[in-house]
């Protein structure tokens, strides 16, 4: 009886694993088929002729714009954008969390509430005014402009994460540091920051996936030389009146998702745990 139950339990779990893996499976399988096989065949079947060509094409030969560059140059653009954006938003989030938990002052809750609500605004509404502001400050079409945008709209979440994390950080430590003569900055850099490992990981992963996956801002505010990966991928897969090379599209899609996938799988356990520490408890 117990054994039967156990078996049923595992079957259900594996069934769901299949459900979650299906789209990825579809993408992977079809990214190594020839176009003819895709047109004629079964989406779920394994490739008759295995070909790695679509991956090569997607990476270095596919037509993204005028030049057949593949996704590779845009990969670099994405990195150039993601790294500073993640760094800055995480740093600001950490500072905000620090102030909001350890240097409280009247009205700090309202400020936190304002920041938190910012997580929830639909991004479409900010496109036009944001463009205007970027134009005025001369950052339109630049990578730094994109970084600014991502920093601004990531602040809510990073602050939330750090605030919840630091809230559980004993106040006595701060008091001890004060007694030891450390001021605002040294308390932060010497005591809190070195102990923030888990939440930094969570925040970085969260920000990284969000910024990496962003399409709307990338398309709207990037220029020809700062276009991120997602926009390039979109150019690859949703060209309007041309021939659709599905195998290349899928290969490109997996390529574009690779960094986030790797990050999730490698640090997934840390992420879940950190999420408990930082986010779920509200």
């Amino acid at each position, binding site marked *: 009886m117990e054994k039967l139950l156990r078996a049923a339990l595992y079957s259900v779990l594996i069934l769901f694993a299949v459900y979650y893996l*299906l789209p990825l499976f*579809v993408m992977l399988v079809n990214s190594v088929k020839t176009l003819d096989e895709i047109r004629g065949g079964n*989406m779920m*079947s394994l490739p008759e002729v295995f070909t790695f060509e679509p991956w090569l094409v997607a990476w270095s030969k596919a037509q993204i714009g005028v030049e057949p560059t593949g996704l590779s140059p845009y990969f670099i653009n994405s990195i150039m954008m993601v790294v500073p954006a993640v760094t800055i938003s995480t740093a600001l989030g950490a500072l905000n969390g620090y102030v909001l938990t350890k240097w409280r002052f009247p009205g700090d809750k309202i*400020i936190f509430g304002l920041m938190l609500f910012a997580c929830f605004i639909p991004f479409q509404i900010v496109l036009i005014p944001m463009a205007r502001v970027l134009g005025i400050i001369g950052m339109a079409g630049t990578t730094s402009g994109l970084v600014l945008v991502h920093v601004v709209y990531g602040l809510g979440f990073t602050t939330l994460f750090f605030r919840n994390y630091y809230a559980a950080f004993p106040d006595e430590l701060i008091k001890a540091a004060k007694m030891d003569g450390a001021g605002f900055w040294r308390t932060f850099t010497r005591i809190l920051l070195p102990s923030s490992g888990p939440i930094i990981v969570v925040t970085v992963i969260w920000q990284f996936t969000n910024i990496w996956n962003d399409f709307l801002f990338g398309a709207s505010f990037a220029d020809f030389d700062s276009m991120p990966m997602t926009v390039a991928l979109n150019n690859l*897969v949703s060209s309007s009146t041309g021939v659709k090379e599905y195998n290349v599209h899928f290969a490109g899609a997996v390529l574009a998702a690779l960094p986030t996938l790797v990050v999730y799988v490698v640090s997934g356990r840390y992420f*879940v745990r950190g999420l*408990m520490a930082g986010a779920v408890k509200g």
Partner: protein
Amino acid sequence: MREVLPRLVLSPSLFLILLFVYGFIIYTGYLSLTDSRMLPSYELDGFGNYTKLWGQRNWLIALQNLAIFGILYIAICSVLGLVLAILLDQKIRGEGILRPIYLYPMALSFIVTGTAWKWFLDPGLGLENTMHLWGWESFTFNWIKDRNMAIYTVVIAAVWQSSGFVMAMFLAGLRGIDSEILKAAQMDGASRWSLYTRIVIPQLRPVFLSAFVVLAHLAIKAYDLVIALTNGGPGRATELPATFMYSYTFTRNQMGVGASSAVIMLAMIASIIVPYLYSELRERR
């Protein structure tokens, strides 16, 4: 001095948020009262856009769809997340493998997975076709083509994306329950069923709340999901407020109407989030 520095540190962030979030919300509110069409115009036009908005059949459809989508999405994600979390909490071997599998969809954007889903749901290419090829001829699954059912396919894909995340939240909640309470319930003679229904699930209330807020805001903001999957079709059958707003603002050159729909959306979000924030922040002390 001691009092000033922290505020000084906070001020850049606060400034950014005030300008780029609240400033823009006000700006949008203003636009919704103007006759803006293609580019912003600053001629006030009263509440004309709102009358127009509520006169739009598409808007009403979008709201109705949101209701269907939102309720199903939140309910299914919560139930599924809870069930998976409970199952995964039975000292499962291989939890370390299953958990990231359930969770990874959250890491992918629909720009990436949209095509795969579209294929999978397409009767001619996907599941139905596969089943036919495998010999189950009578199998039909053409919801994505069916005006009445298409919104449910959006639910399927959306559930796919977020339920793992909800699962993680519930798992965190489950792991946080005092093991002595579970032992006490066993001593009291609770069966596994009553253990969960009477003792465990009632204690997960805060997690339900957090999950609800996260899911609700995702539901209201749902955009690329619909665009990738059905692009609002068949017909307008899967239009949601977010796609409505985007298309009126940017492709239909009716920025005023788009802005007014954005204001309504914001109001909806606020009506969910603000009470939550209020209770959360008050409780803290």
